[in-house]
């Protein structure tokens, strides 16, 4: 049957536009040939090429043709639809055409960038264009769906990124739930003494923000709590949060700390998590003096009452506000939010994984985070850099790239270690006067004032030895090495192997995804990149969005980041969330499934398949019906419907069959 027989009135009028994308496409695909080929396809009225179709003149070209040539179907062959499908649909709309009479062909990501031979690339591009032209004939006019949006935001993680995002949104008048797993907010930043390169006191800039969070009327702060379930979709997430028992009633505790003094343990004797075991705490404790909320908690693992059931419970007596409650149970809170910001942060690399560096074997090998606590005025040594035996080190080696830039562990550069190593080198030298050696592969200081800070350290006489350390050992060869840790390294700039005896080794451990990042990602239905950090929607154009609408990323959960970048990203995530919820509604792709009622036999095959319970059985009419508001458009029911009564907008069988035939058109 000929086209004119199907379409006695002339049939659809298709315009095909092939983008050069500069050289990105045109450097490989013979665009002219693709255009000429497109002209031979049925119903194609015009076919054109342009340098950058997504640019304004490119879009204008489409709009003009739609008006002038009365185009009612448009195919654009350019980049991935995830980048510019929306752009071109809008262009159609502006030209007065239904935006869904459009099909995008991905000849950049799927052709020019992944095909070596220009000939083959051109052929593949032609086939994909042929497929799109065939498909678009079968497109129907559709309407986007509008769904109202909940006016509240969930921020997961109370580090600097989560804090900043929460405050930004709260200041804009939106209600924020800030959920933090630890008993206090503050995250890693709260552990630092100074921040690079300005050497601002971390506490001075962080603790005011922490108090603001606690005091803000628009923020509900849940620490010692974890998100356990997420349902729903953009604008309408239903979230369940588990609040672990602190055995202290948060609302009653005023943080007087009388209970801690009263504890039957006279001395603090349990390793203190906040100080990474370098300090001690009691079973009833507050993580650190500026902890927010300033509420104590009881660790049932070490508390005598929980372990034996026998204790004088002196803490209970000491508390004038009767805030201590040994019977406290965990609580599950349920909230509804329109958007979610994930700011779950990072963990540091476990230095034990590189036995060559002797962490865990030699007591004087420290991780950088431990040294952060040592140099911190409120840390276990009151800011004095002392070894475990109390000595003050005279020579200190800082090894960079521990667990980073290493195929065996993490391939990536952790981005912050160079700078924090410089900072620690400075602080150690300042506090102890020690000779400090930095062992680095490459110095990476690409930030405002960072290179200047590096220069300052060079001026201070800190040693910089370019070479990755192979081994830290206590094997002395020369007398001056006796009793020291010897660092073996090639000084690659000198071109010789050196053995450098030191008293203290600091391992600049890299940043890794949180150990439970994969479970969290599943719960929120987002992706992880290869190294396990949460995956952004687009590295450049959508760096704080995810592939799940309404879920945004902030801080180091997306990849290693320093404080300025985390804060900047938190602000961006907050702005994105705000833009989403402030609008009041979201528009959804009209790719929902529907049932042609007259054709449904009521076989119920589809009903049990729907993950969202969007399909129900209409007992009166004995057929299945789809609630399009609940449908997310996966199409599983459509594939299963044995009689073809269930269908899917934008992914109609006929459209896909046409596409199959098209891609197989080996021209």
């Amino acid at each position, binding site marked *: *049957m000929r*086209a004119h027989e199907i*379409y006695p009135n002339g*049939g659809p009028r298709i315009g095909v536009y092939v983008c050069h994308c500069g050289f990105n496409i045109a450097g490989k695909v013979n665009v002219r040939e693709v255009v000429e080929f497109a002209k031979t396809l049925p119903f194609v009225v015009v076919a054109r090429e342009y340098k950058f179709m997504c640019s304004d003149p490119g879009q204008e070209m489409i709009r003009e043709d739609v008006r002038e040539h009365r185009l009612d179907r448009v195919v654009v062959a350019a980049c991935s639809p995830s980048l510019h499908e929306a752009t071109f649909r809008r262009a159609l709309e502006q030209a007065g055409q239904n935006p869904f009479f459009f099909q995008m062909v991905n000849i950049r*990501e*799927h052709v020019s960038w992944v095909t070596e031979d220009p000939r083959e690339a051109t052929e593949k591009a032609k086939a994909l264009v042929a497929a799109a032209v065939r498909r678009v004939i079968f497109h129907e006019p559709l309407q986007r769906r509008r769904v109202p949006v909940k006016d509240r935001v969930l921020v997961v993680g109370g580090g600097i990124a989560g804090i900043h995002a929460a405050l930004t949104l709260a200041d804009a008048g939106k209600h924020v739930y800030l959920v933090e797993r630890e008993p206090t907010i503050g995250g890693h930043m709260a552990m630092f003494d100074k921040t690079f390169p300005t050497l601002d006191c971390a506490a001075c800039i962080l603790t005011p923000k922490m108090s603001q969070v606690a005091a803000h009327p628009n923020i509900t702060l849940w620490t010692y709590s974890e998100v356990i379930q997420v349902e729903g979709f953009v604008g309408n997430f239903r979230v369940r949060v588990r609040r672990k028992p602190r055995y202290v009633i948060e609302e009653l505790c005023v943080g007087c700390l009388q209970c801690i003094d009263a504890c039957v343990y006279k001395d603090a004797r349990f390793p203190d998590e906040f100080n990474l075991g370098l300090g001690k705490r009691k079973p009833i404790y507050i993580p650190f003096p500026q902890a927010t909320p300033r509420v104590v908690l009881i660790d049932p693992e070490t508390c005598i009452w929980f372990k034996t059931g026998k204790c004088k419970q002196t803490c209970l007596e000491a508390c004038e506000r009767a805030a201590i409650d040994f019977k406290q149970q965990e609580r599950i809170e349920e909230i509804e939010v329109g958007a979610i910001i994930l700011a779950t942060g990072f963990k540091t690399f476990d230095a034990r994984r590189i036995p060559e560096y002797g962490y865990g074997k030699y007591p004087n090998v420290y991780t950088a985070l431990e040294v952060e606590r040592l140099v911190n005025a409120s840390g276990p040594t009151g800011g004095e850099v002392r070894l475990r035996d109390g000595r003050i080190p005279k020579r200190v080696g800082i090894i960079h790239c521990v667990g980073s830039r290493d195929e065996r562990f993490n391939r990536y550069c952790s981005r912050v270690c160079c700078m924090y190593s410089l900072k620690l080198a400075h602080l150690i030298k300042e506090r102890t006067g020690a000779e400090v050696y930095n062992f680095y592969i490459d110095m990476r200081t690409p930030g405002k004032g960072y290179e200047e800070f590096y220069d300052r350290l060079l001026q201070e006489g800190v040693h910089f030895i370019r070479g990755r350390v192979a081994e830290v050992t206590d094997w002395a060869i020369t007398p001056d090495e006796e009793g020291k840790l010897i660092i073996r390294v090639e000084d690659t700039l000198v071109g010789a192997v050196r053995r450098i005896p030191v008293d203290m080794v600091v391992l600049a451990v890299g940043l890794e995804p949180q150990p439970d990042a994969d479970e969290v990602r*599943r719960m929120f239905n987002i992706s992880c990149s290869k190294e396990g950090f949460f995956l952004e929607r687009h590295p450049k154009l959508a760096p704080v969005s995810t592939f799940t609408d309404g879920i945004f990323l902030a801080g180091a959960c997306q990849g290693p980041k320093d404080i300025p970048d985390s804060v900047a990203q938190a602000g961006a995530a907050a702005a994105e969330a705000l833009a989403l919820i402030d609008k009041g509604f979201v528009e959804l792709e009209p790719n929902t499934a529907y049932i042609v009622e007259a054709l449904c036999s009521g076989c119920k095959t589809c009903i049990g398949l729907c993950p969202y319970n969007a399909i129900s059985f209409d007992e009166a009419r004995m057929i299945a019906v789809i609630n399009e508001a609940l449908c997310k458009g*996966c199409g599983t029911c459509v*594939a299963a419907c044995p009689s073809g009564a269930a269908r899917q907008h934008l992914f109609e069988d006929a459209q896909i069959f046409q596409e199959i035939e098209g891609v197989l058109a080996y021209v």
Partner: protein
Amino acid sequence: MSERPVAGDKGFEPRIVAFFCNWCTYTAADLAGTARMAYAPNVRIIRLMCSGRLDPQFVLAAFRHGADGVLIGGCHPGDCHYQEGNYKALRRYLLLKRLLREMGIEEERLRLVWISASEGDRVQKVANEFTETIRRLGPLRLAPRPGMIRLPAAAQPEPQPAAREGVLP
């Protein structure tokens, strides 16, 4: 350097249709592009929202219209954007493979792979491997089918041009 199978002079170039889910595998294919990971041009991708949308008819249609191999890509088990569409794809795939076997079609011509959004390199690897597998198997010699293949009827009978022959002029 890519290890793309080089087009031989043997004349046989496998034709491969790939149905990729929008969220994981299609995105991974985009990533393969962004990372310039060249792979065999034989693999041509059709986007579905979910591997659960994969109707076995699509696979058979692809074979009928000249595909020598069909690739289905979905999110890893447990990772489906729509909770468990990929499990449904897996069930259909396994049953379909049994059917193909009985129809004398090598099972390797149909392959289901789980590729997450970050696994651009896996798209490259799978595309190249699969193309090689099909190249080794040779063309699918499906007997020519007499008569026209009718497209299924459309939702609204008019003015949609469905319910007509599949072969456009």
